[in-house]
């Protein structure tokens, strides 16, 4: 199903907010293009990096200042690569890329550590402490943080939309289409009553119109506001689940 237009779209589909910052984007480019981190072809990287930023501007998304700062740094390195290189006291020739390489390596190491930490957390979450006291986990746990729903809704919508599009399940808007948010809310509640929990994508069983997609998302937000449902991600890399909020807990 990956026809040519899809492949061309692919590069635009990688959005900046997928990245934690300009260093993350650079690491992505380095990995994607199988670049040796100690010998970065700076011209190629500058072009790719700026290409990404331009894509963002086309989509009318504001590019964060830190990306522009990195673009400036890359341009400076590129310029210095063209100039005669000053010799250091030690007789070695200074590589203008050194500062960038150091930054990338340090960042990559911490990325690795954060993955390792996340793995440790997942392991630990499978160990349940002896909980003879009803308040040992649920009450003193993180109940109050649930309300914050530290969820990235943009990613939620984006992933679902991309997936539906990929599977050709988005159909053009129907003239005179009548979408009722209240009806979508009822649908979500009914779905959850039956299944217990749902992924956002599951709320679209067949084909859907853009209008329907938006209405379902608004309905979900409405339900969250009413505290009828909550949205949670088990881990930074996990599925995003929608749960029905129990009316009374521990029945």
């Amino acid at each position, binding site marked *: 199903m990956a026809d040519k237009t899809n492949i061309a779209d692919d590069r635009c589909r990688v959005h900046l907010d997928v990245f934690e910052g300009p260093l993350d984007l650079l690491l992505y480019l380095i990995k994607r293009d199988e670049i040796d981190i100690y010998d970065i072809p700076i011209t190629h990287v500058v072009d790719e990096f700026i290409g990404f930023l331009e894509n963002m501007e086309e989509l009318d998304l504001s590019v964060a200042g830190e990306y522009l700062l990195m673009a400036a740094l890359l341009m400076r390195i590129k310029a210095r690569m063209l100039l005669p290189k000053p010799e250091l006291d030690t007789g070695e020739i200074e590589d203008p890329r050194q500062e960038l390489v150091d930054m990338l390596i340090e960042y990559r190491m911490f990325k690795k550590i954060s993955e390792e930490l996340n793995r440790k957390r997942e392991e630990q979450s499978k160990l*349940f402490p002896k909980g003879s006291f009803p308040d040992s986990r649920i009450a003193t746990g993180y109940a109050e943080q649930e309300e914050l729903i530290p969820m990235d809704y943009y990613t939620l919508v984006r992933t679902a939309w991309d997936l539906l599009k990929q599977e050709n399940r988005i159909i053009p808007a129907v003239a005179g289409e009548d979408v009722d948010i209240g009806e979508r809310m009822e649908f979500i509640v009914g779905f959850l009553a039956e299944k217990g929990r749902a992924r956002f994508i599951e709320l679209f069983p067949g084909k859907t119109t853009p209008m329907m997609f938006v209405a379902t998302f608004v309905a979900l937000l409405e339900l969250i506001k009413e505290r009828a449902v909550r949205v*949670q991600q*088990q881990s930074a890399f996990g599925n995003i689940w929608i749960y029905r909020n129990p009316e009374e807990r521990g029945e």
Partner: protein
Amino acid sequence: MSKITKTGIVEALIFASPGPVGAKRLMNIASLESTDEADRIVETLNETYEKNGRVFRIKRLAGGYQFFTLTGYAPFVGELFTDSGQPHLTHAMLEALSIIALRQPTTKPVVDKIRGADSSAPIHSLLEAGLITIKGRQKTPGRPFLYATTDEFLKMFGLDSIAELPKEDDLAELFSDELQKAKEDAEKAYPKKNEENEKQLEQHEQSEQ
């Protein structure tokens, strides 16, 4: 009733405590000689559980002992709880947390610099989740807050102390193969001037004359 032993007392204390029991506490109540003895007793207990096919072990977390069910039973025990009991952690939060954990106490500018991105939001969320805390202010311009990890962090990540965290040096070693390869490549790309090359060059020049 069976004979009361030190091992028995340690087991009883850990069993009855609503939360982790510190080694010092065990040492005092059970009149142990050292915290090492507490460690040894816990080890014996765990061996007994294993031999008898019990589904729990005593684990030392954030400096205290606590009973935990075995990993394999997680899907079943998890059914008891309405939620995972864990706050959501984004990549940004995990990155900021790793930096703070390894460099603690440290400041937001340090985290920002390593991540190459502003870290106000993840740091704020980490503070709210109780995984980090403010340890004071650095005596540098702007007097930025100093952040450090909490016991809650150790508990969530299954650590006894921050000494168990992966070390930067160990990780550098992970990448060292790559560094070695890079060095070799660099040498191939820029070979050192050796005598042979120079001789050839001289001969070449002579023949031209």
